[in-house]
Every structure is written in structure tokens, then in C-alpha cells.
């Protein structure tokens, strides 16, 4: 039943793309939490995997989901790109479906609509100060 998938122990992994210089292959760094036996604290342990990316749609910095191939594609490539979870610079919040960056949504970015009266007066005052007057000398 599970023989078709699995030249590898890791069937599904999530990692960050660190290199795309190879043709149709993405270098992905996967971090796992490993318990330090003395401190009894979990630390990230990294491992790099190579994933087959036929359309070369990965950019460095993407968070991707990899699926294990049924048999090894080459000496190092044992996984393929299943899905790009978060595209760098273009993160879509899965709960609302809207594009976002950090802790704010990118939807309504038109500043002029959200400015209040006080804001406009303050900004115009600042602009006045910045004006270079040739009569100062």
C-alpha cells in the first residue's frame, strides 16, 4: 500500500527555498525541532533537500511543500514540489484569502482616502518647512 511512495522516510516536508541555480531543481532547507539531551530544549536542526521543480517557479525565500517521489529521480533529488505555501513578497493569508505583509493586510493601501483632516494639515505644514526659500540669504 505504501510501497509506491517512498524511497525516502520523509513523505511530506515543508521547507524554505534557498537556491534555484540548478535547472528545474530547487534547493530547500528543512528545519526540524530536535531535543537537546542535556538542556531538554528543542532547537532547529537544518537539512537541505533537493526538489524537482519542472516549471522553475520557485524563487529564493519561498516556503514550499515537497512530496516524496516514488523512486529517486537522480542521486540527490528524491522529492518534488507539491505546492508553494507562501510565495515571498506575495503572502496570502489563508483564512481571509487576502494578500498581506507582516501583520497588516495589503488590500486598502490608498493613503489619500484614509487621511484625516489633522493629517493633511500636519503634512502641509511639514511641506512648508521643507520649502527652500531663495530670499533667506
Amino acid at each position, binding site marked *: 500500500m505504501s510501497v509506491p511512495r517512498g524511497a525516502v522516510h*520523509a*513523505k*511530506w*516536508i*515543508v521547507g524554505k527555498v534557498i537556491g534555484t541555480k540548478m535547472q528545474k531543481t530547487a534547493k530547500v532547507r*528543512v*528545519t*526540524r*525541532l530536535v*531535543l537537546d539531551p542535556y*538542556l*531538554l*530544549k*528543542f532547537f532547529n536542526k537544518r537539512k537541505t533537500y533537493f526538489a524537482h521543480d519542472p516549471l522553475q517557479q520557485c524563487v529564493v525565500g519561498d*516556503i514550499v*511543500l515537497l*512530496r516524496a517521489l516514488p523512486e529517486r529521480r537522480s542521486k540527490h533529488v528524491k522529492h518534488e514540489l*507539491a505546492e508553494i*505555501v*507562501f510565495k515571498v513578497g506575495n*503572502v496570502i*493569508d*489563508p*483564512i*481571509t484569502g487576502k494578500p*498581506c505583509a*507582516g*501583520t*497588516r*493586510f495589503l488590500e486598502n493601501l490608498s493613503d489619500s482616502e484614509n487621511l484625516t483632516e489633522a493629517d493633511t494639515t500636519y503634512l502641509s505644514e511639514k511641506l512648508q518647512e521643507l520649502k527652500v526659500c531663495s530670499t533667506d540669504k
Partner: protein
Amino acid sequence: MPMKGRFPVRRTLQYLSQGDVVFKSSVKVMTVNYNTAGELSEGARKFVFFNVPQIQYKNPWVQIMLFRNMTPSPFLRFYLDNGEQVLVDVEDKTNKEITEHVKKILGKSKEMLEREERERKKLSHPATFGPKKYHLRECICEIEGQVPCPAFVPLPKEMRGKYKPAVKNEA
């Protein structure tokens, strides 16, 4: 001499083994997206601080990834073996509620855990003795009803190796 850190109890084996979320075998990856500031992410932050070590201790083969400040809303995402993804919104939930919910949807039930315990117990016979790794007792002298270890209680003269030839020599 107290332990170092804010809540060093998190770094004790007793606390780690108290975690009761054991994932079903189909769960492969768990991803937690949360924010380092804001009231809505408070529960998620506590979950990551207190409960994620317990979960990882009980499920060493599940990959857990933490993402900070990527999206405004905090959520958990599980990737299952059949390609299915489970999205759990944790906005405005306490860390206890989050663990309960996760246990309900993707955790092994108590009966399953007990059944697995019993299966594991069946494999090893408690009456045998041998290396500590596989048995409860190492030597036959530890079993009650058997001859005690001569290191603690000297053997009676008849059982010692040098008694029989000594008697023969005398006779």
C-alpha cells in the same frame, strides 16, 4: 540552585511527558503561524511557548515549523499523508482550547493509546530476566523466591564450590 530561564519547568522530562496530544500516523507536518505582538495571537504564543515542546516530544517524527509575523491572523496548518491539509484558526483562543481542539481533530483517542500500550506490554514477558533494556530484572538473584545474591547474603556452606572437595578430603 534554580533552573535557568523563564519557565524552566518546560524543560523537565516530567512536563514533556505530560503532553497528551499524540497525532494519528497520517499527520506528517504541523505549521504554526503566529505574531509576536497583538492580543489575538496571545493564545497562539502561549501554545508555542508551553505546548509545542510537549507535542514534539510525544511525536518525534512530525515536522513542526513555526512562522512568525507572516500573516495578520494566527493559524495552525496540518499536512496529512494523503495530501489533505487541515487549517485551524486560533485567533482569540487560549492555548488550552487550541490543544483540546487539536487533540479532538487529529489526536489518537484514549482507547487507541491504551490499546497500543497493551500491545507493547504483550511483546515482553515480565517473568524473564536479562539485560535492563529488555527485561525488568537482570539476574535470577533479584527474583523473589530464588537464592539471594551472594554479594549481600553469603551462601550456605553446602552450596559453595570449595565445600564438597573439602568434605571429600576429610573423609
